[in-house]
């Protein structure tokens, strides 16, 4: 079985900022240059504050993700993990603070669509796929291409694109179900389909919210391998509760608590931190 | 298989209509078909339902006397559901599918305007029983309701007279329909010709279905402070209740500011507590309270009919002006058919000119020789506590209609006889 086909599927990006390989990213716009990641960080969150009617969901949160890094975020419920992802993807606007994608893209000023097109992909906590469409069509919609209305009206898949979809189908092991409506897939299959859609999107930064929830052990193992292979050329941010899974994939872990970074480091370091122990076990 | 049901329905519908036609065509020798085109559902049902019943009663009455030309009249009732395009469709159906000899129907001007092209195209015959704004004279329509000069102008003349309270300021209040607009335009021109200054006339319109008259009543009060004021109301039926209630509760009574209404009759008063309204006025060509033998017979016949047919609210059945106009219209048509010896539209039209009928209003009404309108008496009635009107003033003799009002510029060039609008 091919375990690392993804690198072939996803365009690599050039950390030096050349970016000539990038093509149209939707609504007819073409990014002239690739993402500027001169300083080696792909995502910088600085002093982010978010509050809902007085409830502070995030307090002075600062977080940096390096290029090609695979970062795991852990933290108890209500620590602000999903809110942080909402901030990064433009769904929630921070009351203060800055969020930069690369060195030049200010995420707090971009719309969700722009952020997605700039190269941040997100997988939701609850798998969301287009249930009325077939697996194949789900991947077709996700693929990186001109996503403007006009383009969609005229769009026709070329051989290369079909091959890519086939490849991803293979990767996520849904080749047999390509024409099944996505709504009829099992929970785990939906998770994989969503990951597959992310792959089709070929983003530079992937945000994954509890990707292995509801997966069998074998599936989890496979996912871990998949992520590790992705991490070479992409940046990943994985929110996960499953410590075993975190252990297999993460080189760097961040612990969130009450909207703030509590600890950061390797899993061993973090697990040794007394504050983390208190937060996890103390209550 | 997708389109089939649509066509099936259409076919089924037309088949049903046809099969419905058959028994009639078999009896065609014995009956004359008469179309009744009044809304039985939707917003206009409130006014039109009783006209349908009145038409049926009148047809019964004529049938009981042996019918017309020795044949029984057979009513064909359809429901255009207060939907104006549906009026045209149903009109066409009555003329081409049911082949009626005449149609009695419509209430609103827009419904009449909707069916008019159909009746002109197919040379049908329509009797329209409601007061309206004029500005129309079709050879295929006979207008048994009042033209503006048979209702609005005499009413304002009365208000200006000593008995009417010598009003010198006029608040023209109406629903924003074509009828109130046209009527008020005529009234304004009339008032100015009588020396009323522009500043003493105020024109206000409300949206259809308006139910909050607080601001308007406050404005009337303000306006009325300037001198003896009368309100001329062309408010459409449904908005009258909130208007009168507000008027009464804000303490404006008829001795201070009388309201004369052109669309409020006995039927509308059924839905209003009339005690606070005593003294307010309405102008019509007929009131139920008119005392004469013809009317007594008419009213008691209607009450008996309502009871026999078990109509809703039969114990409180009343007659009103459009009902009388329907009654008169059907009888006149029947007389004209007898005179013409045929139900052919062209012959009946000729026979209708100059036709007379002893109407419940107490006058012998004449169909004008030329202009398709009745000569009608004008009466001003005062609201009484029992929901009836007492006539306080009436013209000495029936007035000839002026469908093209001389107070609207350009009308002097219009011919005073019916021509197709093109």
């Amino acid at each position, binding site marked *: 079985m091919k375990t690392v086909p993804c690198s072939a599927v996803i365009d690599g990006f050039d950390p030096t900022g050349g970016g000539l390989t990038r093509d149209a990213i939707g609504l007819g716009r073409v990014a002239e240059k690739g993402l500027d990641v001169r300083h080696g960080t792909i995502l910088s969150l600085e002093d982010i504050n978010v509050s809902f009617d007085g409830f502070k969901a995030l307090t002075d949160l600062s977080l940096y993700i390096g290029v090609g890094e695979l970062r795991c975020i852990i933290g108890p419920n209500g620590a602000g993990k999903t809110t942080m992802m909402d901030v990064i993807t433009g769904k929630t606007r921070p009351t203060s603070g800055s969020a930069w994608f690369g060195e030049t893209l200010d995420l707090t000023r971009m719309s969700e669509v722009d952020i*997605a097109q700039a190269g941040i992909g997100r997988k939701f906590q609850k798998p969301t796929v287009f249930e009325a469409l077939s697996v194949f069509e789900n991947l077709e919609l996700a693929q990186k291409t001109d996503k403007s209305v006009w383009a969609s009206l005229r*769009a026709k898949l070329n051989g290369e694109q079909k091959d890519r979809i086939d490849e991803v189908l293979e990767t996520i092991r849904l080749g047999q179900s390509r024409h099944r409506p996505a709504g009829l897939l099992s929970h785990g299959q939906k998770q994989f389909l969503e990951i597959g859609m992310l792959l089709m999107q070929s983003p530079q930064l992937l945000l994954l919210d509890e990707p292995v929830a509801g997966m069998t052990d074998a599936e989890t193992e496979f996912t871990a391998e998949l992520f590790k292979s992705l991490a070479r050329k992409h940046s990943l941010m994985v929110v996960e509760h499953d410590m075993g899974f975190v252990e297999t994939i993460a080189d760097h872990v961040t612990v969130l608590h009450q909207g703030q970074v509590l600890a950061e480091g390797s899993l061993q370091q973090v697990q040794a931190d007394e504050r983390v122990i208190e937060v996890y076990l103390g209550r | 298989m997708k389109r089939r049901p649509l066509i099936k329905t259409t076919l089924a519908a037309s088949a049903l209509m046809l099969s419905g036609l058959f028994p009639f065509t078999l009896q065609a020798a014995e009956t004359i078909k008469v179309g009744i085109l009044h809304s039985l559902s939707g917003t206009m049902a409130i006014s039109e339902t009783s006209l349908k019943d009145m038409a049926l009663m009148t047809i019964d009455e004529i049938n009981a006397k042996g019918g017309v030309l020795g044949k029984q009249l057979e009513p064909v009732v359809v429901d255009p559901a207060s939907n104006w395009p549906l009026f045209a469709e149903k009109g066409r159906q009555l003329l081409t599918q049911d082949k009626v000899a005449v149609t009695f129907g419509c209430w609103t001007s827009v419904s009449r305007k909707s069916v008019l092209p159909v009746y002109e195209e197919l040379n049908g015959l329509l009797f329209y029983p409601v007061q309206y704004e004029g500005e129309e004279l079709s050879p295929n329509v006979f207008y048994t309701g009042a033209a503006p000069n048979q209702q609005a102008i005499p009413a304002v003349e009365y208000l200006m007279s000593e008995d009417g309270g010598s009003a010198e300021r006029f608040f023209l209040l109406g629903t924003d329909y074509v009828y109130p*607009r046209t009527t008020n335009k005529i009234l304004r021109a009339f008032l100015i010709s009588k020396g009323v200054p522009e500043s003493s006339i105020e024109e206000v319109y409300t949206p259809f279905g308006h139910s909050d008259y607080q601001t308007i009543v406050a404005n009337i009060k303000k306006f009325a402070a300037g001198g003896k004021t009368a309100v001329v109301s062309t408010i459409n039926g449904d908005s009258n209740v909130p208007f009168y209630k507000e008027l009464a509760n804000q303490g404006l009574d008829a001795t201070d500011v009388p309201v004369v209404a052109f669309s409020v009759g006995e039927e509308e008063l059924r839905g209003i507590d009339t005690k606070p309204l005593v003294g307010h006025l309405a102008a019509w060509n007929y009131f139920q309270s008119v005392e004469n033998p013809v009317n007594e017979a008419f009213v008691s016949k209607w009450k008996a009919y309502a009871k026999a047919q078990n109509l809703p609210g039969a114990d409180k059945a009343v007659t009103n002006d459009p009902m009388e106009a329907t009654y008169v219209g059907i009888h006149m048509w029947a007389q004209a058919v007898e005179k013409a010896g045929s139900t052919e539209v062209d012959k009946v039209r000729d026979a209708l000119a100059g036709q007379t009928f002893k109407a419940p209003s107490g006058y012998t009404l004449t169909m004008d020789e030329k202009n398709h309108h009745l000569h009608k008496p004008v009466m001003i009635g005062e609201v009484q506590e029992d929901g009836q009107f007492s006539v306080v003033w009436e013209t000495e003799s029936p007035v000839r209609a002026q469908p093209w009002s001389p107070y609207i510029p350009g009308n002097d060039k219009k011919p005073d006889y019916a021509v197709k609008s093109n």
Partner: protein
Amino acid sequence: MNQPLTLTAAQKAGPKATVTALGLALAVLVAMPLLHLLPAEHALHVSAYTLTLVGKILCYAIVALALDLVWGYAGLLSLGHGLFFALGGYAMGMYLMRQSAGDGLPAFMSFLAWNELPWYWYGTSSFLWAMCLVVLVPGVLAFVFGFFAFRSRIKGVYFSIMTQALTFAGMLLFFRNETGFGGNNGFTDFKTILGFSISAPATRATLFLATVALLAGSLYLGFRLARSKFGRVLTALRDAENRLMFCGYDPRGYKLFIWTLSAVLCGLAGALYVPQVGIINPSEMAPTQSIEAAVWVALGGRSTLIGPLLGAGLVNGMKSWFTVALPEYWLFALGALFIVVTLYLPKGVIGLIKRRGE
């Protein structure tokens, strides 16, 4: 809704049967106006009554189809489609009024205090410009309304209520006599269109054929859209708008496109409706009319192309029949029908046919 966005029933019953049925229906519809040209005594003559009735229903069917494009496919229930229909009708009506008025003012203006044509009437004596208005007025209005509504992400019930408010405001505006569209009477008494008498059988037949052509065209357009990637994006939009945004699609553009297209189709249907029924007035904009259109779609079957057509045909056919057969009680039948369909036929009549097919 787990319905794939394709011709569900068609797939089940096999494309062949569908094509045959559609072809047959089209043949009947094309034959009807031709039969109308036969002399009235002829056994196969189709009467003007039948022709205008079916023509009217066909116009409604186009509205239903247009509404289904936005509701069934994009998940936006519009309760204001009557407005676009009426606007198209008014644009056509303006031309027809100018035709019958000749060089003078339209009849209603001359007795309602208008001395000259208001600016928005300029050029309406030209058929071409009137046709431009038929497309532009509903199109631009829908575009502007949609642009703002979709920008602020108004959806679901909010969107429905806003569209309802829009058509209600439109109705009030057109009711005003000062607006210059004939007030509550609207436009009637049309005489000629392009110089041909509007009541001539040949004109009727032509208008009918034009309606059939528009319907067939809309159906084809809908079919192509449903099969394109655009159609799939719409379905995705209906079911998971957020996911779609994170895939990098801007839903606004998609919604705006289908919404405006739907409005323009309605406008065209309205323009064909007016000369056939002979009247246009503000009651076409009444919110209840638009709700009824939604009922046609639901009754026929949402998210299918044929369903709405069936629904429009069934409801209007029944209305025409019931109003004669049971004038006092037809509302009971109609009301009961709505309840029964929503309760027992959630996928509409088309769902029933599909189940039969299986």
